[in-house]
């Protein structure tokens, strides 16, 4: 029996501070076990990114019903950084630029925050260099300000770099492959493959099946209007790739 990492039950959530509550997630259920890779597909505006942000505890969103548990413990009262420290990581669709903080300093600060232990500078530098090589990131970028002046593809690779160095239990990948050329998708996908093992899990949002080709997907969920409307194995990816979401709408 595999270990349950994430359990979402009847989740309702919307934009906070809005009169109508602008409900985006409307009764969503999802379970992810250690060792698994899950994929969420769905048309634009169906609530995919909202789901990622809500799992991460973005203050912009408010949970109005249901529950999210991580390793059996409710996340409801936890702030974003506390969720990260428990082992959840989000790779952003549009990573923020943080002027004045270098990639190396930022990563060292977050490693220290997540592990709660002091990080040895030289040892960490070596590790960082190795991971950057693997993702084909110019080592000079370690000294550049976080995402400032990076191309779209460089920002995404920088997200995967953080994934490798923080080594979470659950990785949420929000369209990490969008805007990437074929080679870059291969690199990113290779990074995810290296990260993934029996003890952790991935939840991937994508519009492009290429990133999935070299990953062994366990479960596919189709999200429409804030609810999971269809679930299945990897074969569902091919079907949607071929036919679009149209066949689901007719139901």
């Amino acid at each position, binding site marked *: 029996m595999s270990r349950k990492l994430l359990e979402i039950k009847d989740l309702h959530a919307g934009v906070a501070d809005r009169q109508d509550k602008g409900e985006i997630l409307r009764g969503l259920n999802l379970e992810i076990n250690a060792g698994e890779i899950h994929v969420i597909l769905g048309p634009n505006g169906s609530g995919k990114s909202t789901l990622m942000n809500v799992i991460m505890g973005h203050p*912009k969103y408010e949970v109005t019903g249901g529950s999210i548990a991580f390793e059996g413990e409710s996340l409801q009262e936890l702030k974003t*950084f506390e969720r990260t420290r428990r082992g959840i990581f989000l790779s952003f669709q549009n990573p923020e630029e943080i002027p004045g903080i270098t990639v190396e300093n930022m990563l060292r*600060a977050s490693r220290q925050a997540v592990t709660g232990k002091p990080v040895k500078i030289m040892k960490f530098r070596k590790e960082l260099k190795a991971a950057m090589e693997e993702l084909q990131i110019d080592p000079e970028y370690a000294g550049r300000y976080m995402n400032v002046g990076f191309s779209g593809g460089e920002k995404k690779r920088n997200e995967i770099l953080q994934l490798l160095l*923080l080594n979470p239990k659950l990785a949420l990948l929000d369209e990490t492959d969008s805007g990437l050329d074929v080679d870059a998708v291969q690199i990113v996908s290779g990074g995810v493959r290296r990260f993934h093992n029996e003890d952790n899990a991935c939840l991937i949002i994508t519009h492009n099946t290429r990133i999935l080709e070299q990953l062994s997907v366990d479960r596919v969920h189709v999200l429409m209007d804030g609810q999971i409307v269809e679930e299945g194995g990897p074969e569902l990816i091919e079907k949607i790739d071929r036919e679009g979401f149209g066949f689901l709408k007719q139901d």
Partner: protein
Amino acid sequence: MENRNKTFVEDIERTLYDIRNEDRSAYKSQAGLTEDVVRDISARKHDPEWMLERRLESLKVYNSLSLPAWGPDISELNMDEIVTYVQPDAKMAGRWEDVPEDIKSTFDRLGIPEAEKVSLAGVGAQYDSEVVYHSIQESLIQQGVVYTDMETALREYEALVREHFMRLVPPKDHKFAALHGAVWSGGSFVYVPEGVHVEIPLQSYFRLNAAGAGQFEHTLIILEKNSSLHFIEGCSAPKYNVTNLHAGCVELFVGEGARLRYSTIENWSRNMMNLNTKRALVEKDGIIEWVSGSFGSHVSMLYPCSILHGENARCEFTGVTFASKGQNLDTGASVIHAAPYTSANISTRTISKAGGRATYRSAVKVTPNAHHAKCSVNCESLMLDDISRSDTLPVMDIQGDEADIGHEATIGRISEEAVFYLMSRGISEEEARAMIVRGFVEPIAKELPLEYAVEMNNLINIELEGTMG
């Protein structure tokens, strides 16, 4: 760590700076400003006759000028209450052992003797109105470098001082320049001969201990042709409930092909009126680099001015201002392009929080003969809450041909998406905000001497602690 200090802090803890010594001055002038006071100061300082005349002339100018009609309100300053001259009970010493214990321990706490051992080629330390300590490395003396207090310079280099003193900042410039001319005391004098490069910085530290007093130190630096120097100036004072006044004056003469870096971290207490005037005259191919940090004082008006007088003369200005509760910091820079092919780069960051007000004010002037002048201004402001205020007031007066002038200004708040991004990397909300603020000032911090960069970081941390609630 997340639990600490969630309440709002009225005034920051500044223990290090706030330790005040008993005021056991040898002599204090009477409060207020009269001809008798000026004559008395002059006599006590054994001024040459011409200096007394200049002081009296300045006093006349002072009485004829009114307060500036622009900028922060300084009407609460009552000159009748300010003691303009406070002579510490100490002779100037060349060894720290000879400085009286309480005064020495003040500078110990500020880390001055330690820095002297590690990273400085010379140190001057002023306490209230007089310099109590001065030193310079022997090797520099042998190269003809002079670094001493203004009083000694007035005796030993009288002709040089007479030629340059208040030539860049004439008393009629504004009311506080005139005040300075009348009651100035202390400060540093530096002379670097042609071709000499002072590789290690010199530092003067100004400490105002007496309550209700004014500090009017004069800094005069002369760099001859193709020489170079890094000069560091620090200032602080303990907090009192009465107004203190700082109206110092800095005059920098940068000769042909010479390069001067002038770094300041000003951390006056929050009862200080800091009305300081700094000006540099830069000859052909010369470079003036200002690095300026303004954190303290109740009101500041500070706009270092660079007069680019020779062809190809250059100015680099890097400044950071942090205004918190009860502070109105009006800072910026001014550049006069007075020759062809002169260039200037002004880059500033201002932060305001807890109702503080920070204004960036600059003036760039290009005279008709200064063709091909190049000037770029970049000022960014960050407001940390809804009750603080930031303003940007750039003025440009371009009369030369083929000028290339650029101005970029942004005023903003901390991006909540950036805070979320950092939090999603495990960093606490408080630390995320501090990181963003530190990142915001990083382009400035990296220009500061190391110990000042560390001090600035500490000041930012102190300022940000308890701002979340």
